């Protein structure tokens, strides 16, 4: 089914991915964050049904009763749009850890996107912050990457299993330092050396 090939051909690729890069982690916020929104949308979906039942119970004759189905259909159309807008914003907030760098890509709305990246060599310290009852039970929280620059920090917000992610990033960092002494890249083209 070549028509649907776009669903399978882009696994773990993203804009700006280097040919020599391997994606180690692709992180979103924890599913619980999205689940809260989905429950809210679930309740919103009941509004037209509840309204219909209420109108039938009170037995009032509204002037727009002939158009009720039409109005409800329009409501559901925009409900569908709102639901997928929320899902889109959730899916486009990503943190990617490759074997060379960390990419923080956050979507703040349509055409409002911030992307920052950090070489694994520049990581100095990683701390995890799990705050609250539900995050503790479900094991999700914030991860903070301190870089060599004085004020620059990377935040992974509400990610699942932050302690495991911290260990994996530290392991990737150590491996990167081992393979790339003095932070020298030698991948782009044969014979060329890229220095940061």
């Amino acid at each position, binding site marked *: 089914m070549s028509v*649907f090939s*776009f*669903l*399978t051909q*882009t*696994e*773990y*690729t*993203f*804009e700006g991915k280097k040919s020599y890069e391997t994606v180690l982690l*692709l992180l979103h916020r924890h599913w619980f964050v999205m689940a809260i929104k989905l429950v809210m949308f679930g309740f919103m979906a009941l509004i037209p049904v509840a309204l219909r039942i209420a109108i039938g119970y009170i037995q009032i004759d509204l002037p727009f009763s*002939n*158009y009720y*189905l*039409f109005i*409800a*259909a*329009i409501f*559901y*159309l*925009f409900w*569908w*749009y709102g639901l*997928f*807008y929320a*899902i*889109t914003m959730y*899916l*486009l907030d*990503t943190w*990617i850890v490759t074997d060379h760098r960390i990419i923080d*890509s956050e*979507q703040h709305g*349509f055409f409002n*996107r911030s992307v920052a990246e950090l070489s694994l060599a520049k990581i100095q310290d990683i701390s995890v912050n799990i705050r609250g009852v539900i995050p503790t039970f479900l094991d999700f929280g914030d991860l903070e990457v301190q870089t060599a620059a004085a004020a620059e920090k990377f935040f992974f917000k509400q990610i699942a299993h932050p302690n495991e992610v911290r260990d994996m990033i530290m392991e990737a960092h150590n491996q990167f330092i081992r393979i790339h002494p003095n932070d020298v890249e030698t991948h782009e083209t044969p014979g060329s050396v890229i220095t940061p």
Partner: protein
Amino acid sequence: MLIYWIGAFLVLYHLIRFGVGNQPKAVAFIFFAGSIILVLIVFTAYLTA
């Protein structure tokens, strides 16, 4: 309806262009299919009203 489809295009564009992995593309497909079905329901409801 034109406003809806412009908005739908923006959702589809962002999911397909900036989504990493297969999941956003699959979500875009579900959104598109659902949008077509709902628009047809809106038209049918309008004609029968």
